[in-house]
């Protein structure tokens, strides 16, 4: 009899059994989205010896606003080859939310495995303008605030609250970029001290260049498998024992930006605090956001934060969240972690948050 962990969310054990990601690059100028996805999908299946015929559902995450054309998620399916016709769905969100949809379907028990993939380029358009369009269309979007300026308001609020300093932001960036040196998929990795980083000029006060995410083109994919199927394809599956996502108001002015109550609530529902955590992969595009998330999830000092380098190492739109789940699963597969917390965010200043707890047995 296979052993499964105790579940906080759902009643059927579903494991992450495979993960692949595209090389995270500043500008993928040679390949279109389908050409980017094909090798990722081939790897995510091939590395565990299965094909598209072995999954009962496909769910993807992307947004046409990045591509600049309609229905890009439909043409992206050509990277999988959906014949005979497949059960398939799409979310206009990060792939982490596509994984959530696939997990829900797997709970129903009609299928045993699913493919989740996502893709996003930051390079075709002006990302600052594109991200402004996700804001409230009446009061905020017409002002075209760029995401770094909004994040800087949050960082300043954090400083004003006395909870963190600019040196704390630099320490997060220093640690993350140093960890990224051992991540072959990292786009930005270096070995620089906090003091060196504090000598940089401000991009938008109080954020210096090191506190900002890179602009990244990328893609990622995960295979989920339920019950015995998970063990068939993976020696030590990373079982999803808890998963939840919550959102805050779209009105930035109505939020206390120094805290993340949606992350706290999602973390509670996902059972983060039920047991010790070895690794946390936090989707914090801006350095100070890692501090807010760690507090929201009540992570203690013993938790290894973003050993992959996190979103500061590479921040492919619509994929950086799913990559956090993939990196967490890798830590479980290797035995490096027994229990990991993966987090994905969306919207300005951590507006929407997903928390996924993964465990090996």
């Amino acid at each position: 009899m296979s052993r499964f962990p105790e579940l906080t969310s759902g009643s059927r054990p579903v494991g992450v059994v495979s993960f692949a990601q595209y090389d995270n690059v500043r500008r993928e100028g040679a390949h279109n989205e389908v050409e980017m996805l094909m090798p990722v999908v081939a790897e995510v299946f091939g590395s565990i010896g299965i094909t598209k015929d072995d999954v009962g559902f496909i769910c993807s995450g992307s947004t046409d606003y990045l591509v600049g054309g309609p229905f890009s998620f439909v043409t992206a399916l050509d990277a999988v080859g959906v014949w005979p016709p497949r059960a398939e769905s799409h979310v206009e969100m990060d792939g982490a939310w596509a994984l959530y949809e696939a997990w829900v379907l797997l709970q129903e028990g009609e299928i045993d495995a699913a493919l989740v993939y996502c893709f996003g380029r930051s390079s075709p358009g002006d990302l600052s303008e594109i991200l402004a369009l996700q804001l409230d269309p009446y009061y905020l979007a017409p002002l075209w605030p760029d995401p770094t300026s909004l994040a800087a308001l949050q960082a300043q609020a954090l400083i004003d609250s006395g909870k963190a300093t600019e040196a704390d932001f630099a320490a997060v960036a220093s640690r993350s970029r140093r960890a990224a040196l051992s991540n072959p998929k990292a786009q930005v990795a270096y070995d620089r001290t906090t003091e060196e980083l504090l000598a940089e000029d401000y991009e938008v006060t109080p954020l210096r260049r090191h506190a900002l995410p890179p602009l990244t083109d990328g893609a990622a994919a995960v295979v989920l498998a339920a019950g015995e199927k998970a063990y068939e394809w993976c020696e030590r599956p990373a079982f999803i024992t808890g998963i939840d996502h919550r959102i805050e108001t779209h009105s930035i002015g109505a939020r206390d930006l120094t805290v993340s109550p949606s992350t706290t609530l999602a973390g509670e529902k996902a059972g983060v605090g039920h047991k010790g955590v070895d690794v946390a992969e936090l989707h914090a595009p801006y350095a100070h956001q890692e501090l807010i998330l760690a507090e929201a999830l009540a992570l203690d000092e013993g938790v290894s934060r973003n050993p992959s380098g996190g979103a500061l190492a590479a921040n492919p739109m619509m994929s950086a969240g799913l990559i956090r789940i993939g990196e967490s699963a890798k830590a479980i597969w290797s035995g490096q972690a027994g229990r990991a917390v993966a987090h994905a965010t969306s919207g300005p200043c951590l507006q929407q948050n997903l928390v996924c707890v993964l465990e090996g047995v």
Partner: protein
Amino acid sequence: MSEREPVTMMAAPIHLDYVFTAGVAQSKNLHGLEEGKFIGQRCPKCKKVYTLSRGSCPTDGVPTDEIVELPNTGTVTTYCVVNVPFAGQSIEIPYICAQILLDGANLSFMGLIQEMPTDEVRMGMRVEAVWVEPDELGPTMASVKYFRPNGEPDADYETYKEYL
């Protein structure tokens, strides 16, 4: 309360510019058009040939690496005679819009049919591409001016029924 009229509408103009990445496969197609040629790509698994491919076989999900030069001739699989004027129309109505299956290809695409009375268009009609002048050729479908009947007898329904 104010005596002013309630706001019922607001304008928020949005304009975004993008740099389009055609990709490896589509670049080959576009460069073919630049030379007045149709380029197809064959799937290594199902052997189907796609024109204007995005680089993958939509059935098998594998790269269509083999390049196939396709002829200038094809068959009308289905069509529509446009009689309705609309904003931005650049062609005089009525005109014929058809799905054209190039000989040797397994995917049709939309093309304009000219040099014939609109009421004589039919499924199975054989056509050929008319290209713009050589100095006007570019990496765009606009390099194909239109298609016209090439005088061959109509294709047998069996030859194109899979492509409707």
